[in-house]
């Protein structure tokens, strides 16, 4: 199934495990070197920055090649039919297969670009071809599901596996929507159930040893299904979607039947995720749960504006800050299998100083309310007003 060199993938996995163990201080440098020379790196894997460069340049090359071919056949009116992007997509897929089989590139940016270019052409062509059919949404989501599953399986692509997961949920959504009013009323629960089933399936495959090269894809599927499991019961999402299904104006905030179920889901599920994450020692669950607390807070504030934004910010900031100081004190020695010790190095983040750039980007809004920037050089449309409500 996987197109890449299996032995190369095996060695890559060993490298990654060994490096993680080395970063955690469990392996000596000598061991790391020994393991690496016993399992040499067979794949061409440039670093992230080179990969981005390759990706951009390859995308430019592919686009202009297709434009050139299209221009050559322009007289035949090829552009007017959806078969043309499908044909170009098949050509580019053939190029992709040939390229990966003959080269040792593994996610080098070149194969990534070809993959996304191919899927863009094929997906776009299919949507174009199917959009005037009856049941077009059903057909399109089924096609996207097939296409992205194939790409995810064959090219071990993480984002493609997330897309496949979403397409599967879309398929369920549109099928169930056919069931009329009963379908509409039970929709959130059906999506919840299917998300849970997808998560459960991914979890089972992960713990078995069969899909060893798909660990990252499975993690992406799990994150996607956890998020959709939450979104399916989130009050805001359910209410806005039901507005859309009943063709009500989007601004109506009428309470929905059985609202308390959804309020409970909105507020409690993140906590459940966090608790489960702590209990099962899963960083994935823990991190998704932490992120969703922000989503829950946003939902609550959307309906009940009890506090103005600045008090929310000050209070939540102060609470989180004191909570963290308490946790730091608690974790001075490792407890319950958790530690604050740094056990991994984030090379590329450290190298790019990304963190400090992000801080500067965020803070540029907050710190400049001061001086109503009367620019010394004229112009300069910026400055002032730190009151951004979408923090």
């Amino acid at each position: 199934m996987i197109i890449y060199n299996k032995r190369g993938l095996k060695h890559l996995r060993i490298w990654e495990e060994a490096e993680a163990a080395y970063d955690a201080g469990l392996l000596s440098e000598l061991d790391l070197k020994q393991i690496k020379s016993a399992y040499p790196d067979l794949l061409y894997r440039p670093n992230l920055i080179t990969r981005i460069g390759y990706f951009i340049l390859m995308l430019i090359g592919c686009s202009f090649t297709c434009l050139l071919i299209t221009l050559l056949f322009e007289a035949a009116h090829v552009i007017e039919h959806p078969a043309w992007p499908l044909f170009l997509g098949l050509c580019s897929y053939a190029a992709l297969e040939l390229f990966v089989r003959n080269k040792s590139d593994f996610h080098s940016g070149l194969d990534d670009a070809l993959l996304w270019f191919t899927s863009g052409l094929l997906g776009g062509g299919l949507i174009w071809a199917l959009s005037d059919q009856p049941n077009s949404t059903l057909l399109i989501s089924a096609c996207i599901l097939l296409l992205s599953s194939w790409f995810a399986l064959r090219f071990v692509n993480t984002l493609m596996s997330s897309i496949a997961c979403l397409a599967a949920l879309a398929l369920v959504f549109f099928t169930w929507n056919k069931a009329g009013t009963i379908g509409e009323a039970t929709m959130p629960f059906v999506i919840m159930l299917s998300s849970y089933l997808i998560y459960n399936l991914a979890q089972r495959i992960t713990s078995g040893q069969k899909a060893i090269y798909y660990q990252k894809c499975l993690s992406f599927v799990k994150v996607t299904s956890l998020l959709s499991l939450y979104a399916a019961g989130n009050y805001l999402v359910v209410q806005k979607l039901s507005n859309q299904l009943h063709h009500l104006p989007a601004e109506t905030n009428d309470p929905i039947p059985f609202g308390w179920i959804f309020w409970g889901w909105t507020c409690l599920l993140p906590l459940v995720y966090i608790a489960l994450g702590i209990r099962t020692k899963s960083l994935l669950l823990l991190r998704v749960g932490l992120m969703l607390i922000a989503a829950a807070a946003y939902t609550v504030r959307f309906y009940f504006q009890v506090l103005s934004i600045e008090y929310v910010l000050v209070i939540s900031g102060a609470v989180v800050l004191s909570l963290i100081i308490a946790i730091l004190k608690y974790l001075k020695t490792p407890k319950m299998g958790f530690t604050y010790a740094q056990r991994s190095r984030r090379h590329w983040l450290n190298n790019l100083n990304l963190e400090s750039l992000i801080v500067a980007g965020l803070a540029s809004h907050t710190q400049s309310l001061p001086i109503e920037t009367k620019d010394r050089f004229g112009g300069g449309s910026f400055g002032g007003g730190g009151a951004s409500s979408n923090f």
Partner: protein
Amino acid sequence: MEEGNARPDFGSNLYIEALKTFMDFDLFEELDQEGLLTDDSRQKIKQEAASPLLSVFWDINTLLGLAVLALSTGLGILVYKNIDSISHGVILAVIAGISIACFVYCNRKRLPFSPAQVHSPGYLYDSLLLLGTLTMLSFVAYLQFQYEVFGSRYGLATFLPMILLFFIAYSFDNLAILNLAILNLGIWMGVTITPKQLLLASNYDSARLIHTYQLLGLILLLFAFFTQRYRFKPHFKFSYQHYGLHLLFIATLAAYGKDYAHPASWLWLIGIMGLAFLVYLDALQHKSFYFGLLAILYGFIALSCVVCRLILSVPEGAGVFLIFYYFIFAAAGFGLLLKRFSNQIKSS
């Protein structure tokens, strides 16, 4: 910033760290049976398998950063909204108190100053330093707003926070605050220079603004050069060079667009290519993939502008075809250049 000894796969490492739960002990069992582990490592891994440890280092630090940003933003808005109510004195005192408390804490914890990189004692320290700095900025802003301490001398009113920021960045050795200081330098010169806003605002009509951007870019590059030359906080070079390069490249492209009708406008493009070449050489010398890629991409853009203009200036002929051919071959050529560049860095 010297990325030379970074491992080649650090892109994919991010996924592992974000999503992984435990290491694969079976795999290490196998490796051990092949005799690839020393006794010491085997002991450590066995111990780990018996009681595995999960590190929440990055989670806690992310939350810390968010908490600090939320707190300082909220306090800033509070001051802004309550500026003419009775409670403003109280709020002001609270803000000053927080700022002073943070600085007292950091001053007590900090390591002695040195021109080389001084590693921070921890993330809590970094976050509190940032909180102290941001609240201090709110405080200075309030003073100006309410009492007009600096009167209408807006230059001075922006100059003082900038100097303070640079001083804090250098004395406490903090990159986040250095970035804030660079940003403030931009405000002082009449521009806000977060790249995002550079792209969004795209307010390129005014020639004076463009030349200000160019000047600022040059000044930042000079800072980067001297930082490297005199080895004074050499790890600050990245920030200066990052902002300076993007600013200078984008502003010069804008200058080219503005002067498009002028017969000598191609000189700007030559300037970009020359700068890109210098940056390329510098990146090779200092083994920086990031700046090498920047040089290659901006060089590609400038060359494409020249070629397209040349092709389109021929009145009749297969202009569009030639441009398509050019882009196909140029993308391949620059791809090869990128490959050569990364191989050169890796082999040196």
